[in-house]
């Protein structure tokens, strides 16, 4: 029953000074809604960045890293003590691309986290249209798998991605490449490989990923047609692009696959450390800004609680004279802080959500985005609430402890 009595006193304190309570509430509401908004925005930005990056980037990339340095074969037979003098060594490349790809594909597809594997035959070529010549990358792809991994059909601005399936003579080229070579749909483009093979293809589609470096040099071709161009067998691929159910979880897969696959197994993080750094930095900024706001809100609560306690110092003294213990007084004031924390927290979450939704609708048309990105992650909301509660608890506990230490004699004697 005493618990009820303490809470009743706390309730009366909160409701009798409505303005002060509202000001304290607003502090928490502002802090928490900002926390929610900042984090939603930053993770929205990170997600957009990731999506953009993964339009051309797989989570794990398996490829032939080129031959090792084998210019001194004598040492590998006789050991390092033997002096060998080899002039003008030439590397005779035994393997190009990935041999025996079927067994590798079946091994990789057995891994539980793998959700997609796209084999590719990437060929470094010159694209030519009469006078103009562009050095670029002709990518022979498995049409369905490529779409599954990179969702490229979404970036088609002319033609249809699936047409590639049925037209062995057709290529889909990047918008930048089309522009440089003055190509349009149904035009012909000539391709020259580094080994001197040449072939004419018809442009059946144009895509635009908004990543300039990709749009300017890439063309897609059916993987069978690419093998034909190189006169390779049906098992030949140069790259294997692998996607996982969670793109953050590449290291365990890489460490499992690398020892058993005789080719380079590389995660996107290793290949693109700047992306990883960018995301982490943005997360840190969001965290720093929102925690600062919460801290300011905490100081607001601290001030208001201190004011309340100074105003009620005589009442606290009388409560103690009547036999309320220090613990009771702490409970009375801490309860007020907790109520402000919980109510302010809930309102703050709602406001944060509304604010995030509004900002989400602001138009922003750069690089294939049409409005500001926003992420709605339950975890952010839960964390915001917890941080808000901790802040109010700390901000309320210090004045409450001060109140509990009030000596009634000092106050009542005047």
């Amino acid at each position, binding site marked *: *029953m*005493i618990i*009820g*009595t303490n809470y*009743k*006193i706390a309730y*009366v*304190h909160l409701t*009798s000074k409505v303005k002060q309570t509202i000001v304290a509430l607003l502090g928490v509401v502002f802090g928490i809604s900002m926390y929610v908004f900042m984090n939603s925005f930053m993770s929205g930005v990170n997600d957009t960045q990731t999506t953009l990056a993964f339009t051309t980037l797989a989570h794990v990339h398996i490829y032939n890293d080129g031959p090792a340095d084998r210019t001194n074969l004598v040492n590998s037979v006789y050991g390092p003590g033997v002096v060998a003098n080899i002039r003008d060594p030439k590397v005779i490349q035994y393997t190009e691309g990935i041999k025996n790809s079927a067994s590798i594909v079946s091994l990789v597809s057995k891994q539980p986290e793998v959700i997609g594997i796209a084999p590719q035959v990437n060929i470094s070529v010159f694209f030519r249209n009469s006078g103009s010549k562009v050095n670029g990358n002709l990518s022979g792809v498995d049409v369905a798998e490529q779409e599954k991994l990179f969702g490229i059909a979404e970036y088609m601005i002319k033609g249809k991605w699936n047409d590639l399936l049925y037209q062995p003579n057709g290529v889909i080229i990047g918008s930048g490449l089309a522009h440089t070579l003055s190509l349009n749909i149904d035009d012909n483009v000539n391709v020259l490989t580094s080994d001197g093979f040449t072939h004419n293809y018809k442009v059946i589609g144009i895509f635009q990923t908004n990543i300039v470096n990709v749009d300017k040099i890439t063309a897609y071709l059916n993987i069978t047609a690419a093998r034909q161009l190189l006169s390779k067998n049906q098992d030949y691929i140069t790259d294997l692009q692998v996607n996982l159910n969670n793109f953050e979880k590449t290291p365990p897969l890489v460490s499992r696959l690398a020892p058993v696959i005789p080719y380079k197994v590389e995660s996107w993080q290793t290949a693109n450390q700047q992306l990883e750094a960018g995301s982490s930095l943005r997360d840190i900024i969001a965290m720093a800004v929102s925690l600062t706001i919460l801290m300011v809100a905490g100081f607001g609560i601290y001030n208001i609680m201190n004011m309340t306690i100074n105003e009620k110092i*005589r*009442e606290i*003294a*009388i*409560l*103690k*004279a*009547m*036999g*309320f*213990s*220090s*613990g*009771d007084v702490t409970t009375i004031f801490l309860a007020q802080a907790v109520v402000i924390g919980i109510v302010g927290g809930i309102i703050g979450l709602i406001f944060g959500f509304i604010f995030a939704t509004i900002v989400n609708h602001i138009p922003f048309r750069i690089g294939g985005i049409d409005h500001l990105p926003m992420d709605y992650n339950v975890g952010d909301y839960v964390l915001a609430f917890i941080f808000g509660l901790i802040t109010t608890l700390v901000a309320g506990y210090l004045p409450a402890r001060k109140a509990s230490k009030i*000596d*009634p*004699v000092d106050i*009542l*004697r005047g």
Partner: protein
Amino acid sequence: MENNIALKANHIVKHFYQPEPFEVLRDLSFEVKKGEFVSLIGKSGSGKSTLLYILSTMDTDYDGELYINNEKLTGQTRNQLAAFRNGHIGFVFQFHYLLPEFNVLDNIMLPALKLKKKSREEIEEKAYQNLKLLGLEEQALKLASKLSGGQQQRVAIARALINDPSIIMGDEPTGNLDSKNTQIVFDIFKELAREQGQTIITVTHDEDFAKNSDRVIEMSDGKIL
């Protein structure tokens, strides 16, 4: 110790250190019997209020020993003393000190709700009894801050009585009241001492008030005259 002793002070000495070291109470020893109505008088600075706050257990910074109802209170922790006050001591102050945001009934009930000896219904009934005793039953649901000074002081007395304390202490309980209200408060105290056997110790400046009580303890320069 005899059973009819309500309060016993043994060689109480108290110093103030601010603004300069000063001995306020000099080796005071006395006893108060159960049901006695005692007035503490003396000039300002004689130490009577200081003594009252020591007797009330709120001030623990003194030398000597204090017994109430044969229980030694010197050396107990603040929370133990708070619990003791809650059950055994009722307070009436010069400036009534009600909680202004609560209604009269809640003000009176608070110490009993803290004590937890009775159910809420019993406490409420007791509170109404006390209000009736003091002629305030009409005011039960008004906010404490809406009452007149005399009424507030009577509410404070009703609150002091809620837990049937063995001792009621007053710090100039009539200091702020006109003569009519002073008379009412005095009569209530007298009745409580006579009929309920409650011990009453009040500090007062009012000579008539003191003269009519059972016993007067006059203080001067930290000593009982």
